[in-house]
């Protein structure tokens, strides 16, 4: 049935891959909304600008590395090197988990500086840190979704179902993963530079 649908349809794009792109657009809007909220709220004053813990820089580097390893998996799949596919996916999952750890450590570092998610009036705290916590946590939720996606792809890869003639899944996985990786890079740069304006 599905095969027929594709044969008859007007475009060569795989509709499922297309759906991943649309999902990404939705996610862009979510974070565009949230970072705009940050800007609007900051412009209102009564705001504390603070320096981002350096841990988040490590997150950024790790997420970029994970994209490289996932791309390696995709390229291997296209060349039918099944070993490379597995290695690439395992590495990516490793980097992804490391990303989660650095996020946790980054939050810890913020807490150590007295920047809390819930700010307390009697302590004279400001709302700024709440934004960073909330936005990065929502991003991490998307990373968790990505990890599940990676795991599914890895299971298929270990069942030898990801190869030259069957790259759909790994292409979709790449599309989503590079996207949320880039999204983090954007968020990092945003949190890094926004206080300076």
């Amino acid at each position, binding site marked *: *049935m599905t095969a027929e649908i594709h044969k*008859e*349809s007007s475009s060569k794009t795989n509709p499922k891959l297309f759906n991943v792109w649309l999902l990404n657009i*939705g996610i862009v809007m979510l974070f565009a909304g949230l970072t705009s*909220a940050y800007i*609007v709220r900051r412009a209102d004053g009564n705001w504390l600008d603070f320096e981002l813990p350096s841990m988040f820089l490590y997150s950024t580097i790790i997420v970029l590395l994970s994209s490289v390893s996932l791309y390696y998996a995709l390229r291997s799949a296209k060349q039918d090197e099944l070993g490379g596919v597995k290695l690439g996916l395992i590495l990516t999952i490793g980097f992804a988990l490391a990303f989660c750890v650095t996020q946790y450590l980054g939050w810890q570092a913020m807490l150590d500086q007295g920047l809390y998610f819930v700010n307390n009036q009697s302590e004279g705290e400001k709302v700024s840190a709440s934004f960073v916590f909330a936005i990065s946590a929502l991003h991490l939720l998307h990373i968790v979704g990505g990890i599940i996606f990676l795991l599914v792809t890895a299971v298929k890869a270990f069942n030898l179902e990801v190869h030259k003639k069957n790259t759909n899944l790994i292409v979709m996985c790449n599309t989503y993963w590079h996207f949320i990786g880039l999204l983090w890079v954007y968020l990092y740069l945003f949190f890094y530079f926004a206080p300076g304006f």
Partner: protein
Amino acid sequence: MSTATAHADHHLKETFISKYVFSMDHKMISKQFLITGIIMGVIGMGMSIAFRLQLAWPDTSFPILEWLFGRWAPDGKLDPGFYMGLVTIHGTIMVFYVLTAGLSGTFANLLIPLQCGARDMASPFMNMLSYWFFFLSSVVLLSSVFVETGPASGGWTIYPPLSALPKAMAGSGAGMTLWLVAIILFIASSLLGGINYISTVLNMRTKGMTMTRLPLTIWALFLTAVLGLLSFPVLLGGGLLLMFDRGFGTSFYLSDIWLNGAGALEHTGGSPILFQHLFWFLGHPEVYIIIMPALGITSEVIAVNARKPIFGYTAMVISLLGIAFLSFIVWGHHMFITGMNPMLGTAFLITTLIIAVPSAVKTFNYLATLWRGNIRFTNGMMFAIGLVSMFISGGLTGIFLGNATLDIQLHDTYFVVAHFHIVMGSAAIFGMMAGIYHWYPKMFGRLMNKPLGYLHFWMTFISAYLVFFPMHFMGLAGVPRRYYSFTLLPEYGVWMDVNVLITSAAILGGIAQLIFLYNFFSSIWFGKKSSENPWQATTLEWTTPVEHIHGNWPGEIPTVHRWAYDYSKPGYEEDFIMQTTPDDGQEEQLFETETSPSAPDKKDVPEGETVMFWALIKKWFGSARA
């Protein structure tokens, strides 16, 4: 290709559950959306009649209210807090559940595959999920009416602090939490659906179905889905921050607050206005998410029943695109009185008034299509014309409100209530009804009863104007919206008779919908059997067999050779030509008339400004294929 037999096999294996409950067939999902939407509509309307009774007869006791609402209506009089709850849930149900999911969900599911020529949606599974998220969301929302502290009561726009502080009032507690859960499920549903609609329109059109040959319904439903994809995530973000404020004690939307009984709160530094920005960034596109499918349906129904090509196909598409784009940069007109910078207010004022231009283009095109048409007054056509009337009446008051200086006076009065109930509420309901009457034969294989349809139309039309038109005058006189009763202030007492009129008209409208319900449900079993193409329309859905089959077409999917509006084409025997009819040289003809200004038929056109003007208008906005 043995498609036909494959489908027949498929058919046999279907169980009751896979056919009627967890169906992945877009036609069944469409009916599920429609029927759920109708049920929600009945509930929403019932609520409105309940609170209208309170407004018209504030001192009278209605035992039926006590019977319905129990301790929320002691001695047959609505409790003031519950009145606010009813208003809130009524608005939420109508805006999201009936006119977003009920309207887009029904017609996008039915028409996108059928009119584009696809066997189903890009992902039938996601499509099924979309419905079940919607169903779950409806259940959660309705359940909030039954919790001990009552449903959310701060209005459908759930502004903080009433929505952000669980202790602010009764409805701010469990009711508000359930409201938020319901809306998050709803957003999931509409994103799943919307992604699918977009993907199907862009990727799965049949051979020959170029974007410029798409029926306007599809354009409208497609752009509606795009609007949803771009705006619902922002509401999701805003809603999540609201949940953090409620659950964890953050202060995104809360600044220093002193709460009766609880003293000064720990919250500090937040901004309730921030929520309004996030809300209306969705909220305004949302109103176009509601009206655009109705406009698309109207384009189709009017062209079919005027037996004329839709006037200005290209202009219709461009104005839909314009509306879609502009709707993202006007949200501030809901916030003129929040103390925004006057410069910013002026910017929003300008963009808001510009949006009247594409809206007017659409209206004029409808009128021009009707002009000298060979009109068939089917039930669907009556409602489509009704939409045009409502869209004009309500659009005009939008221009009043768009002027910031006037809006400072009119904001939060009944004038706003009148504006949006006419331009959105009534117009979209009329569009939805037009669609139901028009595509009922496609959905159920039978026709609805025509005389009952007329009765339904006239009662609804008269009641809608009687209910909402007088509200303009109340609003101009300063009567505020969302008040439980107007008996305390003598200035408002003068409106007592008007309130009685409005409520009586609302009850009339309610009775009209009972007629519709009877007609709708009884026709499913007892209606006259429909032929394959009862309205003699040109689009692809009417080439499918009356009996639904999985995969829509028994053999191959038809190829499309022409646009959707070849009605009353000179030189043809019939007054409609199916999109599947091969066309001897549509392209060539097009080419010729556009490049040779001295074509014989143009020679004897007299010179003169008006003629030139119309020729130009026709050249730019009309379609050369007409």
